[in-house]
């Protein structure tokens, strides 16, 4: 399958020059070669029981971060919120 590097860049929200894109394409081709070297997938148990996690009890804790902490690293703050350019979908 041919890879559409521009499509991948759009998914990742990254911008590249033409030259960078062609380098990426080479890298992906190389990756495709790497994958070919891997053995075919073996039938395997999807799950092993020893990989089960402990769940958290439903206890609410008092606020660990104040609003000031929450917003302290934000590039742009407005009305106690993170401000971003207008969203349109």
């Amino acid at each position, binding site marked *: 399958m041919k890879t559409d590097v521009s499509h991948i860049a759009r998914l990742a929200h990254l911008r590249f020059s033409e030259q960078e894109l062609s380098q990426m394409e080479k890298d992906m081709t190389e990756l495709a070669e790497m994958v070919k070297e891997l053995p075919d*997938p073996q039938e395997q148990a999807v799950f092993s029981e020893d990989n089960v996690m402990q769940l958290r009890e439903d206890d609410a804790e008092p606020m660990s971060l104040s609003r000031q902490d929450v917003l302290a690293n934000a*590039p742009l703050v407005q009305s106690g919120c993170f401000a971003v350019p207008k969203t349109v979908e």
Partner: protein
Amino acid sequence: MKLYKKKACELSRMLRERKISSEEICRDILERIDSTESSTNAYITVCDDIIEHAKAIDKAVAEGRDIHPLAGIPIAVKDNISTKGLRTTCASRMLENYVPPYDAQVITRLRQAGMVITGKTNMDEFAMGSSTENSYFGCTHNPYNYDHSAGGSSGGSAAAVAGGEAILALGSDTGGSVRQPASFCGITGLKPTYGSVSRYGLIAFASSLEQVGVLGKCAADTAMLYSLICGHDSKDATTARRVYSDLSTGSSYNIKGMKIGIPEEYFGADVSEESAKAVYESISCFEKMGAEVRRISLPNTKYAVNTYYIISSAEASSNLARYDGVRYGFRAESCSSLAEMYERTRSEGFGSEVKRRIMLGTFVLSSGFYDDYYKKALSARNMIRQELLDAFKECDIIITPTYPTPALRLGDSAADRMGLYNSDIFTVPANISGLPAMSVPCGMSSAGLPIGMQLMGAPFSEQLLFNAAYAFECFTDECFAGGVFR
């Protein structure tokens, strides 16, 4: 003797015997940082409250309070571990000014023990690389020879310990990022068993592969630090619920009867003559100490690097998606739309290697490729892991070179990208399989650069690794360990 040349275990004893103070240690360290930092560039940030913390510990000692053996010992922390109120950059423009409002679980442990954090160390951006050249803050130089790399991605941590700019250090190891710089800098570095140390607060690159690791001048130092940070954490669902014995004092030099596996696949043509020789000579030391050496074969090792790159890139593409300029970190200026903000923020904020891996990871997870790439890699991962687990039914530990060569010359590594990746072949299997692995100094090249060997064990067999490393140090009279001051 300057205190920065000493090991943590020595300083700990001297502190408790009140022969020295933490303040004296820290002043020595600060002096050393002043004199060598411009040559090594081991740190991104040096703390300005070091003496203050040291004094607090000295006060506690003076009051006769019970203190942790590591209290008052200066420790450097890799800059991808969250420190509350202390800038944590991941060596990226993206997080150049990011100050976490919380401590990583391992940092909480250090603070509770009264360790003195000296600063945040340089690394490859988001831990992607093995030379510390992919840093927004410039590369780190090897204290043995400034023209050489300190390795990576925890190059700053390794250089700091080896060069006397810290006594101990925390790093992180996703594919060898603690062990390889430890071997380049002539010190001891452990990547613990997956799930034995909390990742809470470790800024994620590849979640299923990485662990916080420890670096020190010798086995005893790393054992002490590992004992402090290991254990179950209710904030990290991937930590194991088990009881850990205190390894800080328990290392034994008696390794008689220990079964050591030597996998032929790890001594191939790629390994430099000097490195192979140093490791083989070390193995004969173990034999002389009464260990039983057996040749083994691990054919699936050849899949390790490819598997590693697929899985780590996939996870990275998702883990690094959160850097979008909304809540923290860099945001590109004057963007007129949301799409533009995302794209320019990420394109301007990330370095080229990070972007490359995000692209590869996005690609392998994308519709139509997932089964052929990601699923195939997961299957290979299981095969590699199973083969190693089977090997540990026959041997207690496995010894290999940590890296095919001693420290590379700066600039050399960037030239040969895929070649460099293949050099990770000895370290990535432990990450893929979740096993503990340690790099121990075992020789010197003719050019005066350190050589390290890797000890690998079954899950949660850190004690065995420390024993073996300690025994080797005793047998060789510590002639390799300790950084540039040996």
